């Protein structure tokens, strides 16, 4: 018999070693997330997945599941927090969605819609982040980076290349590539790399494939991210079926 915890009143089974996020998704319960990806070790940096356990808050993607926990997630207080975090991420970078190739497939944008972020909320910071178009096949538009380190993890752990890393500290933290010139063309990145697939926003782009699928027919145009994420989640056999 599996142990369970309570999530917004529903009983969620879990296997030993699972985090709250893993168990919840496997059982068909959505908790908003950005830096978490089912194929990688949890990172715990975006904090969109913050949940409440009594008076205390924690990132559910890194929190080990424990029997008997009473967890709140889909409550106004936390959704307001998540809206502010999304606003912060928008304000920190330069996101001009209408001209972005990732529009409609972008996790940040989809979270914005799903959480009903209707206003900018903060003064935008307009950082100066030049593009890297040096590579013949790949474009890096740093303006949109949300520093989730998924590309760093994918390139290091899956591709075994470490093409990407984060440099700097605090608000000046930024993505760098593994070359003395600082340019992508001088790295050993390949189109087939896992790192090419994982960026939740529009930083790492294949050149010359712009807008092959029209806006309106893209991933999160079809179904909101809260539904998509559940379709994508690995299910444990014990997990309750979704829908």
């Amino acid at each position, binding site marked *: 018999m599996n142990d369970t915890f309570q999530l917004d009143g529903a009983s969620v089974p879990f296997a030993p070693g699972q985090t709250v996020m893993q168990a919840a998704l496997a059982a068909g319960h959505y908790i908003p997330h950005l830096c978490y990806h089912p194929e990688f070790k949890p990172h715990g940096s975006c904090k969109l997945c913050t949940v409440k356990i009594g008076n205390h808050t924690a990132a559910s993607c890194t929190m080990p599941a424990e029997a008997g926990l009473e967890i709140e997630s889909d409550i106004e207080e936390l959704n307001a927090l998540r809206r502010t975090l999304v606003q912060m991420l928008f304000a920190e970078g330069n996101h001009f969605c209408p001209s972005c190739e990732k529009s409609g497939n972008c996790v940040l944008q989809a979270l914005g819609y799903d959480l009903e972020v209707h206003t900018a909320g903060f003064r935008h910071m307009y950082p100066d982040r030049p593009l890297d178009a040096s590579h013949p096949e790949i474009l890096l538009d740093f303006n949109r980076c949300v520093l989730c380190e998924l590309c760093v993890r994918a390139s290091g752990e899956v591709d075994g290349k470490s093409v990407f890393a984060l*440099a700097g500290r*605090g*608000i000046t933290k930024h993505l760098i590539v593994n070359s003395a010139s600082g340019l992508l063309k001088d790295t050993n990145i390949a189109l087939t790399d896992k790192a090419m697939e994982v960026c939740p926003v529009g930083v790492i782009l294949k050149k010359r494939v712009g807008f092959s699928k029209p806006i309106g027919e893209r991933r999160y145009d079809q179904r909101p991210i809260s539904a998509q994420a559940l379709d994508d989640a690995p299910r444990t056999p014990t997990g309750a079926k979704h829908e």
Partner: protein
Amino acid sequence: MSDNAGSNTAHLETILGCHDHDPGKLLQILREIQEQYGHISPDAITRIASQLAIPRARAESVASFYSFLHIKPDGAYRVLFSDNITDRMLGSEELMRRMCQQLWVEPGKVSEDGLVSINTTSCTGMCDQGPAMLVNGRAITRLTHQRVQEIGHLIRNRTPLADWPADFFRVDDNIRRKGLLLDNKLAPGDALRAALTLGAANIVEAIKASGLRGRGGAGFPTGLKWEACRNAAGITKHVVCNADEGEPGTFKDRVLLTSYADLVFEGMTLAALAVGAQQGYLYLRGEYRYLLEPLQAILQRRRDKNLLGEKILGQPEFDFDIAIHLGAGAYICGEESALIESLEGKRGVPRNRPPFPVTHGYMQQPTALDNVETFCQAALAIQMGAEKYKAIGTTKSTGSKLISVSGDCPRPGIYEYPFGVSVRDVLQDCGAANTRAVQISGPSGICIAEGEFGRKLGFEDLPTAGAFMVFDDSRDMFEVARNFVHFFAHESCGFCTPCRVGTSMLKQTMDKIAAGHGTSHDLNEVENLDRVLQTSSHCGLGRTACNPVLHTLKHFRPAYENRLKSLDFEPAFDLDGALARARQMTGRDDTGAHLNTEET
């Protein structure tokens, strides 16, 4: 002195060799290269990475994390003015302005001839003898206009730092009040012998019984921590001493390491005995670089006396030694898990917890990590016995506490009291008059105002890591808070969204209010940011970053409101401000060069 670029590669090879080409020593390697060459060139980064067999991007990523490491050429003389509020209150801003004028350099930039750069840095831990600065990493205290001018001349004449007047580098202990720690009469080895007669398990019991709690701020019971580490699975264990002392206004660990280092090492050694550790590390903040050689000499003396090394004091299975790691300018490395990351040669980013360091610390092995003062107190508690120790202080805060007093008072320095002393008593002892507020335990702590001076230092009421900054009635508490907000924004490691973005937004908002463009809307935004920082930040830095504003707003709201415009909303984009650069370039500042946006 910097000899340009990494052209001289022989040194680089020597440094790499000294560290066995160990990627875990990356930070120490980078730090030594910085010290040798004045900056870490792209070439040097490439060479280090290839020699250590790590991706280049990783070496760059570590080098760019720490404030004292420069990956771009910097001045041959790198001047950093300590920028704590206490330095400012002693006139540091004006000193810096004048020095910039004297040497023809803009703050934050390198002079055209590459001779000098002048900038600010977070509190250097010299608040009782400020204003202070670092020149090429060396601390200089008691700055005056005359001293700064002399320094300017020495720099212009390219006088090597070694030939500067020794008095510039004098750092005083300023011990004003002694108690059981500062008055101890222990000889090296005394507490260790007492510990050996007790035996490992009984040391843990004695520390538990003494009621000793961590002196680094959080007040975790030391005995419980050591017990957990002792019981943790694994043969290889570590003891780490946290000498990062980055909290602005705190300088008691500096004094302990200057004049009581034997006691610190003695405490670490008996901790090793208690938990079963073989290796110890002292993580020393980069600002205290000048203490490295004296501390190493003391370690050697202890080895010579068989108080460190193999078979300590003749005990067949008691092997333990201590190495010193230097930080490189990052407050976050005082947070225990970030410190461990930094010890491993990485960026100082706090880990996800659980697991905790007692089971998965340095190299994922069990680690007992404590503050400098905690180790001293532990040695004293073992020497005195738990019962006698427990009788000092209060029920939940046993023993004594070192307080670092600075700010508006005639006798700043180190004061040792049994826990439970009132703020008023400390103020009286340091001679403070007309006190408006006291910042307890630094920017991340608590700001209290006059009505509360009866409150007591201790975990029951006012927990403290030791900082005690005094502000008299001439001080503007808004500016105090703004200084602290800048500190947090500068020191945020940038890992998590709320703190990385939130501290910067807070800084922008405080600057907007300071510039006279604030509205009540901005005060609401501060309160919103606080909620977000408190509920979702990854570590204590983000969770406490709003405290200075919230506490000063609570006590000194008029200091904010007097600066607000009566408007509810004020556009963030300042048209006239946008012209400032053009004015600077054209050298104009007449009315025609300003947009008149004020409705006066």
